[in-house]
């Protein structure tokens, strides 16, 4: 099966990026490598597949996400299979209508209201700034009335988070329980609870993620998550990845941007579980005892890229797992720094 592809050239920090879009995708890269920019482009472009926009409104989307880096040199091409369905070249947009989803084709008909509303987005973006939302959710309306400028993507996430809160009144997560009884409460034990705003940074950062992932997976097609590991202990990072994978189905596309070696290792475990379960029925049964089938990742439908100097490089091996990558290299170098000190200590510990 030919995968959808995205080609981006000369867009902000992105020099030339060509990536395949799979059901589950992971992107790594240093701070400032352009991961967030790429996440936001993917959010906009995937949404275009389902909701046709007038050209001006496409440009407006880039403003909404604070990434209006379009210049005359910018090229963005989105391929469904081998067909280009969206192309931005020389400041102009071309679309191949036939390849769009039927819903989008319908929108192109004359007199159709083709300005989309944010709540119709089929791609949902869970930003790294999500902990601000749980902290300031009560104050957001005051911010808006006071005219404090907040990025539109953050407001959109805030609105979606609110909907998720209204729909999911109770949720167990990371050995805690969230209860919405008019107030957001976090239970650490049967009786011990605190208001969300006074809870740990891990709870404040992960609750918006846990609630919205569950909510989005049932209502939207694509989910883009920045740094699922944020503020979490390594074990909680691994549990969070398992939770996310459990929520998404074959109908969803998932994009994860991460800096965490624990996230990569957790994904590799689920990929390997999926791979070996396919080999024979004995292995399938044994893997099933360890991991439910909804946790298995099919490497056929998985992509992994490393972003550096504005270029994306695949980090998925021929085994279907995440292979050599710069995050793991850093773990090696940290261990190497300790080795260096250890060598000094061993060589001179008996010196006078």
């Amino acid at each position, binding site marked *: 099966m030919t995968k959808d592809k995205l080609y981006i050239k000369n867009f902000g920090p992105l020099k030339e990026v060509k990536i395949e879009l799979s059901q589950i995708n992971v992107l790594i890269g240093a701070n400032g490598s352009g991961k967030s920019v790429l996440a936001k482009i993917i959010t906009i472009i995937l949404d275009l597949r389902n909701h046709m926009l007038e050209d001006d409104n496409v440009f407006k989307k880039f403003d909404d996400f604070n990434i209006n880096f379009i210049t005359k040199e910018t090229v963005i091409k989105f391929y469904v299979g081998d067909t280009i369905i969206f192309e931005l070249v020389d400041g102009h947009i071309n679309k191949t209508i036939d390849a769009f989803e039927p819903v989008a084709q319908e929108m192109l008909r004359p007199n159709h209201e083709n300005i989309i509303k944010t709540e119709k987005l089929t791609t949902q973006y869970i930003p790294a700034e999500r902990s601000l939302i749980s902290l300031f959710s009560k104050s957001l309306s005051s911010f808006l009335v006071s005219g404090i400028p907040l990025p539109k993507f953050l407001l959109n996430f805030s609105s979606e988070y609110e909907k998720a809160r209204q729909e999911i009144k109770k949720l167990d997560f990371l050995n805690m329980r969230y209860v919405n009884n008019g107030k957001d409460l976090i239970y650490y034990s049967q009786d011990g609870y605190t208001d969300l705003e006074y809870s740990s940074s891990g709870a404040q950062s992960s609750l918006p993620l846990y609630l919205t992932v569950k909510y989005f997976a049932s209502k939207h097609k694509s989910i883009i998550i920045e740094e699922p590991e944020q503020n979490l202990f390594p074990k909680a990072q691994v549990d969070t990845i398992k939770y996310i994978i459990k929520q998404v189905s074959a109908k969803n596309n998932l994009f994860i941007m991460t800096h965490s070696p624990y996230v990569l290792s957790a994904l590799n475990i689920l990929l390997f579980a999926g791979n070996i379960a396919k080999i024979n029925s004995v292995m399938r049964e044994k893997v099933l005892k360890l991991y439910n089938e909804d946790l298995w990742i099919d490497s056929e439908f998985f992509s992994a890229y490393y972003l550096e100097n504005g270029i994306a490089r695949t980090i998925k091996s021929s*085994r279907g797992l995440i292979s*050599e990558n710069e995050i*793991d290299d850093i773990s*090696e170098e940290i261990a190497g720094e300790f080795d260096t000190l250890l*060598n000094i200590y061993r060589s001179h510990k008996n010196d006078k």
Partner: protein
Amino acid sequence: MINSLKNTFPQIEQNSCLEFRIDKEFEIYDCDENDDNCTMGRCYVKENGQFKVINHGPKEIAFLAVDKCLFFNNDGFKKCDCIIFEDSTICFIEIKDCKNGQRAKRKKTAKEQLKSTLQIFKEAMDLEREHEAYLCVGVSSTRPSTLSSSMDSIVEFEEKFDTRLFDGCQKEFKLRPY
């Protein structure tokens, strides 16, 4: 195995690459570049080496120096430092000190050396034993101890060479109940 090795690689005897150790414990030392203490170009059994071998079994352990003894740089392929084996297991070992940093890069090189040596030996002869490969790179463990890239390499060694890959600088030959 010994005869087969000598027949396949006659330079083993010529270069005195093979020795047998009856010690319950011994260490293997590999010379790093610019190492003033290095008395031999190749790795050899020496106190305070980087790789430790513990033998709980009744039989001696064979030590075969590979790099700069069985094979040399002008042979034109990558090779690991040495091989140790007894009746049930053969272990391919690459040692890298990493005193000058670049641990991640050196580990990648070490994997390639192990893969190349496994390829050569598996093509040349029947090893008749369980295969293991050891990346003895640096001293300290990484966190997570099993990185995603390590997982991929472990699977690669299993798939391509039917070999168990380990990150570490010690091999313990257990006493087997037979």
